[in-house]
């Protein structure tokens, strides 16, 4: 088939098999939930179907692990896309396994929740694979819409609605910024295709530089919102606190990673020729984000809010990689994303299980967890130390490699700021660890155990945090290969 300009279109739908599987599973889950009474199925089946669909999608992603192909010049399937498809599927699988008890007890409409999880995973994969601004934008909205709703699904929690309102209204404004920016990029380049934009921006643009700069400013603002970069971060702590905890985890994992996938695609591809115009913007955002995120995190009392600011701070580190973008920094960023996601999920799944048991989420509520559930305290400690970048845990090496790559890109001052900021972070992570180990539990001091799926998910994450910390080469190699797909050898 050819398009209207006579280009050949590759309409091989099997390239999109993972996303199709996710969509079909989402439909199945809603269907099963809707007719649960008629079909006589309980809640338990919903997470099972979801996980099955995700596993299928993960397997399907691996089919094209070594190919590079595109679908109708809209979505490209290469090792970069595969990296993120696999990553997103893993995140969703872990989250469903780790949080299904929470979802049953504290989330309205679990069927719809699982469907949204699946659809947003598909949207996130499209963000990583998009080859055209239109696909990218719609993928962003699929993910965002799912999250707006997911945030609002907290049961009997008035914070949930407020958080969703903040998120959806500000998200709308951010979308408007992003779109307005895209319209200028489109106007300057005359096309929405990444390849065409890259070619057009590579030419002489002195005539329309103002519009180009305006477009870049607005794109940085719009995506800065999605990635929660300062000063576009303000929705983050509120949405994180108000959302059900699995949604918070998802926000800090898939949503963030997908945004960075998109940022990597754009800044290493279509927008790369204009690097002089946007480099300083990202550097400024990165600095502000690292500093503010870490400082304000010191003052938090709620664990979800603390993790929100911690994730903001992490975004600052990740943005650094975009400043000096190259195949090497991209590889460092991808490795760090992988390590960060695993670590972050370990902490969040532990918090979810803590909440299942206690129904509390203040930092002081973690008092004496080392006595009531030493295993969970260990998982939390490992996760928090890894987030702080303590050696021999995955967070250290990936962060270190990220920093090194940025140094290599000649942004030494940025790394110095990051190293100092990262030290501050240790302090607030220690606050939580201190509560768990140094204080006696309030009231109920009986020992308790996790559910089997709780042990499964936290155990797997803990093992990954430790093993990848000691021997991370597989992760680095995959990340390196994915980054190589961004910079095809000319």
């Amino acid at each position, binding site marked *: *088939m050819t*398009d*209207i300009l006579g280009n050949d*279109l590759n309409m091989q739908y099997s390239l*999109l098999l993972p996303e199709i599987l996710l*969509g079909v599973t989402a439909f199945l889950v809603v269907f099963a939930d809707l007719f*649960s*009474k008629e079909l006589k199925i*309980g*809640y338990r089946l919903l997470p099972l179907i979801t996980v099955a669909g995700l596993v299928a999608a993960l397997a399907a992603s691996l089919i094209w692990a070594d190919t590079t192909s595109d*679908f*109708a010049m*809209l*979505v490209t399937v290469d090792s970069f896309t595969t990296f993120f498809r696999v990553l997103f599927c893993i995140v969703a699988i872990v989250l469903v396994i780790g949080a299904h008890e929470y979802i049953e007890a504290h989330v*309205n*409409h679990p069927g*719809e929740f699982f*469907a*949204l999880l699946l*659809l947003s995973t*598909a*949207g996130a994969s*499209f963000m990583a694979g998009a080859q055209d601004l*239109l*696909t990218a934008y*719609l*993928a962003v*909205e*699929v993910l965002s*819409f*799912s999250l*707006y*709703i997911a945030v*609002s*699904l907290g*049961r*009997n929690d008035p914070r949930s*609605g407020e958080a*969703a309102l903040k998120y959806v209204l500000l998200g709308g404004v951010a979308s408007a910024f992003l779109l307005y920016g895209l319209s200028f990029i489109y106007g300057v380049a005359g096309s929405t295709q990444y390849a065409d934009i890259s070619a057009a921006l590579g030419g002489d643009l002195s*005539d*329309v*530089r*103002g*519009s180009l*700069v*305006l477009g870049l400013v607005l794109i940085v603002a719009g995506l800065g919102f999605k990635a929660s970069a300062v000063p576009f971060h303000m929705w983050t702590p509120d949405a994180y606190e108000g959302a059900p905890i699995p949604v918070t985890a998802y926000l800090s994992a898939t949503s963030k990673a997908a945004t960075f996938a998109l940022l990597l695609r754009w800044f290493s591809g279509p927008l790369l020729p204009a690097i002089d115009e946007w480099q300083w913007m990202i550097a400024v955002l990165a600095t502000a984000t690292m500093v503010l995120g870490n400082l304000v995190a010191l003052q938090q009392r709620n664990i979800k809010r603390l993790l929100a600011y911690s994730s903001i701070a992490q975004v600052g580190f990740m943005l650094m990689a975009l400043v000096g973008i190259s195949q090497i920094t991209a590889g460092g960023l991808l490795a760090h994303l992988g390590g960060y996601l695993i670590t972050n999920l370990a902490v969040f799944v532990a918090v979810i299980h803590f909440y299942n048991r206690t129904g509390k989420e203040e930092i002081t509520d973690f008092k004496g967890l080392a006595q009531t559930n030493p295993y969970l305290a260990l998982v939390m400690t490992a996760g928090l130390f890894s987030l702080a970048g303590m050696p021999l845990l995955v967070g250290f090496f990936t962060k270190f490699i990220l920093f090194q790559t940025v140094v290599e890109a000649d942004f030494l001052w940025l790394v110095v700021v990051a190293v100092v900021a990262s030290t501050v972070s240790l302090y607030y992570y220690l606050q939580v660890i201190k509560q768990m180990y140094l204080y006696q539990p309030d009231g109920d001091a009986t020992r308790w155990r996790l559910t089997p799926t709780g042990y499964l998910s936290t155990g797997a994450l803990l093992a990954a945090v430790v093993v990848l910390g000691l021997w991370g080469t597989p992760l680095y190699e995959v990340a390196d290969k994915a980054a190589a797909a961004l910079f095809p050898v000319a």
Partner: protein
Amino acid sequence: MFDRLPLPSQFDRTIISGGTVLALGATPVLVVLAALLVVDRISAPEFVFFLAASVLLAGAAGVVLMKNIVHAALCLVVTLLGVAAIYLLLLTEFLALVQVLVYGGGVVILLLFGLMMTNAQDDPVVTDGSQKPFAFGVAALIAGVFIALVLDAHWGSPEASIVPFRDFGARLFRDFSLPVVIVAVLLDIAFTGAFVNARRAEADSAARGEARS
């Protein structure tokens, strides 16, 4: 619910007074533009453009300034019709049609319902936030910066051209077939979102409790 809608008397008054204000405001603009047209400073399409733009911007200003939210919503209708006119000037009658149908027919009604079910049922008059003066400053600055950056560019003098309807269809449903599918999913998601939030929580938790027991 319908008894809460300001029909018919308030609506009539709104439309009559709004129309009067619009006519009074539009007359000088119309006169100036007509004069310019007559002395050949602007072409006929430009005349239409400026007319539509004035209506559109006046409507937009109404949306953000009106104290009475029903008036603001009606201003939105005016603005969106103005936008449709602009689309026509850009030779895209299909999008103008979509604009009128989707917005005029759907979105504004939806918003009006939302208004009726929330603020407007007791008191349609709202106060604005305390940061309004700063907001004005920032918005004015942003407008200035944006326009400065846009006008900084030299686009040459390109001509607008008509897109054949058939080509548009082919482009949309063949070249961009995947985005169409994605947007369908997106609408599904939005529908789900509206549904889960608008549904009453009591009914929901009752149903949930029943399902679990």
